[in-house]
């Protein structure tokens, strides 16, 4: 809908860090334990306990700050955000307020081939809260503190996005980067990568921001897109009908495909932030910053540029092959066995990812490793099997058969004219009308016969050889006329 309104979107992303232990105690961060199993006096907030910052958290924050070109605060403060909720053991969340560790920075995105930078406001360190489990039928709520004290980085963007596509592109880019730098496993369904969206609309041409709503419960990229789209049209309808948008938190209701106000009373929270006296300022030693800078892996954008320049891939192929950190190493490994980059790129994007996605598998759980795929493609490159044969080999090996065995079964493709000529002659004899058309001057129809031969040979013929022989035999018939 082209509209008289411009949408403004800002995202808050919570990414759970892959540290072994929680942010302020030694409890494990492993997902899936029995409720309250991964807890101790510290993360339960028992009387007398004190927090001690996990040094890895600082390291991870620096990685992200360097990856996103943020300004790094060399001495930041952890602060207490005070509010009561049963999932919050201490009655306050340790977070950062007026002195966050990272500010500024940006994320590069591309929507419809148009590249743009999304500016960041800040990124800060904080601890996660526990989880309430409601047993509606028994009218009870239970609390699970396994998640309490997991380390988070909250990434706050500027309100600079204008469509749900931009928001999703931004979210995917952030999701990709945190996995490239290995600080977050990115499992949205497990909540280790979460997103809230602030959405507002304003008449086109107006500079001030409209009243925003905050959307929560966005557990997938798809939810993010649909929730934002729904919210935009809801706000426009609301304003068009003469009402003002109410500032509130709304939950995405997946079942009914709509957003609805969060239940319970909407209170204006006064979090009474103040520097946590139990924790010293978070100081970044120069040596640590240098060490993290030097150990920073290649980022998606750097890799994309490298694929364009070193592998001569198209920008599109490069973007696909860098959209997940596992694709690149696989692709490069295939290339390293002597496969031309374009062929390797096509196979990884096409056969491999197509099949993996269809099966809900990933590169890491792929039944075909990069070495085996290289082995198959080598036979295509040296002409001993056809592309069509290779696809059949791929599927059989994917299903668990031994690659050597399958390659031996398939044998070599038909290159021998002595074997191919009788087949071609038979086909030409069977299609006198088509032969006449060809001989009448429409030589491009030769392709029709190639297709017939390939079918007849179940794809085992070498299409190049078949093409040459068909032209020869047809021309022979012309001379014979």
């Amino acid at each position, binding site marked *: 809908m082209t509209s008289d309104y411009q949408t403004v979107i800002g995202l808050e992303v919570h990414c759970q860090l892959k540290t072994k232990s929680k942010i302020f105690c030694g409890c494990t961060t492993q997902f899936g334990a029995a409720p309250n199993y991964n807890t101790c006096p510290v993360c339960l907030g028992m009387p007398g306990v*004190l927090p001690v910052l996990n040094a890895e958290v600082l390291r991870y924050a620096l990685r992200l700050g360097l990856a996103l070109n943020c300004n790094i605060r060399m001495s930041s403060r952890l602060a207490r955000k005070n509010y009561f909720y049963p999932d919050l053991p201490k009655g306050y969340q340790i977070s950062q307020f007026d002195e966050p560790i990272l500010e500024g920075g940006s994320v590069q995105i591309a929507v419809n081939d148009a590249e743009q930078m999304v500016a960041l406001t800040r990124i800060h360190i904080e601890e996660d809260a526990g989880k309430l489990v409601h047993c509606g039928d028994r009218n009870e709520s239970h609390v699970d503190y396994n998640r309490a004290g997991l380390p988070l980085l909250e990434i706050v963007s500027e309100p600079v996005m204008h469509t749900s596509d931009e928001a999703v592109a931004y979210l995917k880019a952030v999701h990709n980067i945190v996995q490239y730098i290995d600080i977050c496993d990115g499992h949205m369904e497990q909540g280790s990568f979460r997103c809230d969206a602030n959405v507002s609309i304003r008449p086109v041409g107006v500079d001030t921001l409209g009243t925003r709503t905050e959307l929560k419960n966005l557990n997938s990229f798809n939810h993010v897109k649909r929730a934002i789209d729904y919210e935009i049209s809801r706000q426009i309808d609301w304003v068009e009908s003469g009402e003002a948008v109410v500032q509130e938190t709304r939950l995405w209701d997946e079942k009914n495909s709509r957003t609805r106000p969060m239940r319970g009373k909407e209170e204006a929270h006064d979090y009474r932030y*103040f520097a946590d006296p139990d924790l010293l300022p978070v100081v970044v030693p120069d040596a640590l910053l240098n060490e993290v800078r030097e150990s920073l892996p290649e980022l998606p954008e750097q890799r994309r540029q490298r694929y364009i320049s070193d592998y001569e891939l198209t920008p599109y192929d490069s973007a696909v092959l860098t959209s997940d950190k596992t694709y690149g190493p696989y692709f490069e490994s295939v290339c390293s066995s002597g496969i031309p980059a374009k062929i390797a790129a096509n196979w990884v994007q096409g056969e491999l990812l197509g099949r993996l996605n269809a099966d809900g598998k990933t590169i890491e759980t792929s039944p075909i490793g990069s070495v085996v795929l290289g082995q198959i493609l080598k036979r295509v490159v040296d002409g001993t099997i056809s592309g069509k044969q290779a696809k059949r080999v791929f599927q059989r090996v994917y299903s668990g058969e031994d690659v050597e065995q399958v390659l031996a079964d398939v044998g070599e493709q038909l290159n021998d004219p002595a074997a191919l000529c009788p087949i071609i002659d038979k086909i030409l004899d069977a299609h006198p009308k088509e032969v006449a058309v060809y001989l009448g001057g429409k030589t491009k129809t030769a392709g029709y016969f190639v297709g017939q031969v390939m079918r007849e040979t179940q794809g085992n013929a070498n299409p190049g050889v078949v093409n040459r022989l068909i032209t020869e035999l047809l021309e022979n018939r012309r001379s014979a006329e």
Partner: protein
Amino acid sequence: MDCYSGIKQVRSELLSGDVKATERTKAALKRVHALEPLLHSFVTIDDDGALERAQEIDADVAAGRDPGPLAGVVVAVKDNIVTKGLRTTASSRMLEQYVPVFDGHVVEKLSQAGAVIVGKTNMDEFAMGSSTENSAFFATSNPWDTDCVPGGSSGGSAAAVASGQVTVGLGSDTGGSIRQPAALCGIVGVKPTWGRVSRYGLIAYASSLDQIGPMGRTVEDCAILLQAIAGFDANDATSVDVEVPNYAAALNGGVEGLRIGVPEQYFGDGTDPEVSQAIQTALDSMEAAGAHIQPVSLPTTEHCLASYYVIAPAEASSNLSRYDGVRFGHRADVDEIAAMISQSRAEGFGAEVKRRIMLGTYALSAGYYEAFYGKAQRVRTLIRDDLARALDTVDVLATPTSPIPAFGLGEHVSDPLSMYLMDVCTLSANLAGIPALSQPCGFTSAGLPVGLQWLGRAFDESTLFRVAAAYEAQTRWHHRHPSLEIAS
């Protein structure tokens, strides 16, 4: 066996086989039970745990194992320091049934040093108060006059030490809570430098001010006890990783050439003349012993009270948020969650705790933060600078610990502000994070003890021990003990 023996005496009698740990512990428990109806020093007495521990010590001695520097020493621990398996209430209804699942760092240290903990001492609820009358359970009496308060908030430990129920005790000091009761009960109390002793296991009142410290009848006992509990602890991010010197070595240093500063602002109109006189006499004797006494000025002193009573309640309002009835502590019998939390807190906390939570919540609120908390923090910086400047020119400062001696039970309960004024001499050390020591320096005509306070540079507890030991060596105050009627 003398119930007033010091740590060294106890240890040597143990090692020589004259007095076994079990014998001393039994005697101590007997005295504790006998004095309890009179003084009410303890919230919880751990007869079984103490005897069991004493038996282990005796077994160590019998087997020739080193039983530790506090071997067989009977200790009382303030009830805001958590003890595994032993009820820890902070003298609050909120934690009346609370049994911790871990030992505080200092408790572990005491245990390693061979001490025997006989019980948990009464205090002002969550350490908020200066008389121990804010205990949710009962008030503690001053052994020198049972109609008087022992001071607070570590009043239970002070009374237990002063009356010879235990050899030494642990207290906590947020604005004077070790030193003021030590002064009012005629014993020695030390608030170490903030960061010197781990706070892990101390139920927080105001984290940036809280510090655990020793209480004993002599400077030497306090030095030995601090030695045992001081030092870096990886579980407390604010504990400082600096070497702990040998405090016993400081005890014989003397005061020849020591520069003692006397800040005029600590001798204001509210100071009892008998207190001023006792301090002056003490200083004269130090001068005679070779110290240089010089006046210093600490112009920020008058702002300590205001700064403290914004910062401490602000931190408390946050520290006490965890008492919501969800995981531990008192839970009101209400179904709806928000109502359950507020009703649990309404029932579980006493009046003074609620007052400070409200003060602190207000001070941190949006729109008031700068005017209160922000300003109080800036004032705190000025106070710290002021003290640092003074301690550049002198080695220690000498002041009264409390402007007045022990006052009557009930005398100030209805007037919180007059109670807050009791802390006027002790707050600066907490705000600045520096160490301070209170020791007896005489008695009033009514027979109540007077306390002399020494303030030193950060991490320089040694100089405090040195000057206090030198003064103590000249006096007999620490040999006087209260006369107590023990019910048979």
